[in-house]
């Protein structure tokens, strides 16, 4: 029996491209339960696509292991991997129509005519491609191509579904729709999936597990809530959402000495640290107006106000410390540029993050 906690298991995967001094992926290790959706999130060049390509077998790792259902994928040729892959370019077969694109994997497996037709029909229904069966793929819209690519990958009933920035070529509205559709489908089919993206909102909303990458390293693995709420390092905290970073020294239990802001209460889950550490507060946790009980409070001068529809983004200067505040619209009366306003936040909204590389 295969341990459910490690249906997909990646151990110490490493890849350095020829002519490069630094590895594209360095010692990536992670595990994924069966039926879960993992997103690999990071800026371009962070190694997420290389990691996905190593899973697919399109890039050969220098060292390390990929196990799927307990089976090592090292040296398994592409056509025997039984993986569904959706490319960023979709990589549809331009000489085949929609039906023959979807049927391709079944044809090369020598599936019987009736079984194949039933399976393709199911995929057409599942992906809402009815009426487009005999279109050439070059006549399809971006969203339709995306659906064909997904249908083609799912038709072979793969052990794992790999998606390489599948939404990057769609316009923003369609992107949201396809994202939700992929998520719903993935849950319904219970197919173990790995989804590569550089879009943090996409990653958080679609994933069961997020792996944040930078510089070839996996910086943090966790649920979307963990990643957003308890970022392990400054890179993760700054890449996902906005944040205010404060240099601070540990002063006494439940109290820190913050550069430019003085003494600040700490939540009880932060343990003492040596030297200068980094505290971190989300802009939407900072409160305008009279402080709540037990909150840290200070006065800051408003430097800029940006309207963002549902909220205002206010840049302030408190002593030598710049603080960014997000305030749901409408703006309370009497807040304007140049004015001094009271700010406060609760100790429980203060996080401690490690500086990168520690």
């Amino acid at each position, binding site marked *: 029996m295969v341990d459910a906690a490690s249906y997909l298991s990646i151990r110490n995967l490493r890849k350095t491209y020829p002519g490069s001094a630094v590895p594209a992926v360095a010692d990536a290790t992670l595990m994924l339960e069966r039926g879960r959706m993992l997103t690999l999130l990071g800026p371009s060049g962070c190694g997420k696509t290389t990691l996905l390509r190593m899973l697919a077998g*399109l890039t050969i790792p220098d060292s390390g292991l990929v196990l799927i259902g307990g089976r090592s994928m090292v040296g398994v040729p592409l*056509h025997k991997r039984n993986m569904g*892959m959706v490319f960023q*370019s979709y990589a549809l077969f331009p000489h085949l129509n929609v039906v023959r694109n979807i049927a*391709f994997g079944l*044809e*090369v497996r020598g599936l019987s005519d009736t079984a194949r037709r039933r399976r393709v029909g199911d995929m057409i229904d599942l992906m809402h491609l009815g009426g487009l069966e005999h279109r050439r793929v070059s006549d399809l819209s971006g969203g339709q191509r995306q659906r064909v690519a997904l249908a*083609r990958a799912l038709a*072979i009933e793969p052990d794992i579904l790999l998606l390489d920035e599948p939404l990057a070529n769609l316009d923003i509205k369609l992107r949201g729709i396809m994202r939700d559709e992929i998520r719903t489908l993935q849950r319904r089919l219970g197919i173990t999936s790995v989804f590569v993206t550089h879009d943090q909102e996409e990653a958080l909303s679609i994933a069961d597990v997020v792996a944040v990458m930078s510089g070839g390293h996996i910086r943090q693995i966790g649920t979307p809530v963990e990643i957003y709420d308890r970022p392990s390092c400054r890179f993760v905290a700054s890449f996902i959402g906005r944040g205010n970073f404060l240099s601070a020294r540990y002063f006494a239990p439940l109290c820190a000495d913050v550069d430019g802001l003085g003494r600040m209460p700490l939540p009880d889950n932060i343990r003492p640290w040596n030297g200068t550490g980094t505290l971190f507060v989300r802009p939407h946790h900072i409160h305008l107006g009279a402080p709540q009980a037990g909150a840290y409070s200070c006065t800051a001068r408003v430097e800029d106000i940006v309207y963002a529809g549902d909220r205002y983004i206010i840049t302030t200067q408190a002593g030598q410390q710049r603080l960014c505040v997000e305030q749901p619209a409408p703006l309370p009366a009497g807040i304007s540029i140049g004015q001094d306003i009271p700010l406060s936040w609760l100790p429980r909204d203060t996080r401690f993050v490690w500086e990168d590389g520690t």
Partner: protein
Amino acid sequence: MSESMQAHPRWLRGLLLAPGLLALAVTFILPLIWLGRVSVLPRSGDGVSLPGFTLQAYQHVLGDGFYWWVLWKTVWLGILTAALAVPMAFPIALFLARTTTRWRGVLAALAIAPLLTSTVIRTYGWMVILGRHGMINDMLLWSGLLTMPVRLDNGTLATVIALTEILMPYAIISILSNLGRLNIEIEQAAALLGATPLQVFRRVILPLLLPGLMTAALLVFVLAVSSLVTPQLMGGGRVFVLATEIFNETTVSLNWQIAGALSILLLLLFGGVISVYQRILSRMEEQF
């Protein structure tokens, strides 16, 4: 696209086309009209063209079994050359498109470098190789496999060998220009869907490249059929194709009527082949 064309006035477009059209008119259309006219002029007993109109040359050509045989030999030579040159050029083109070696540019230049030498020189090169005292005969004699040299240099076989080598660079260029359709990700997608390397080749690479291969075949066919020097020199007077016949009629027999009629027939042959090619190509596109 039509919008951007609308942005330019009609006269400007005409002006830009004018030099090309003029060159075509002077070097192609006018001579063609003149050729057609020569082919229907009556001819006096001592070979002088007379004013008037007659279809005698055509009657002579079409009524003579020899010319039908020459026509067949010509088409056969073209088919044979295309059938040899394209399959040989295909792997070379595929290699040049795929290789990641830094010598790629040099290799590509080498593949088409033969075009820099004249056909005459390359044909003589083949005569040196295939001739009675050529490389191959020397080697066979030296090894003791033969006691008498064999004739390799005169005839259809020698012509086809030389034409294949001479025209292969054109086939390579033609196929290479079409390889852009083949994206490596499409092949990877096919493989991940379970296609073996052979299936990827048969079901993805080949159908995607078929139009390019057919264009290459057409190009080689047309160039082979219209070649003069190689059949003339390699054939040793024993290979009769339309081009050599036309050359003979114009320079030896001085019967310009027959030469004109044969030229027009050759042109019709090309027209026929190209229209068949177009029809096959469009049917293929529909089928996919």
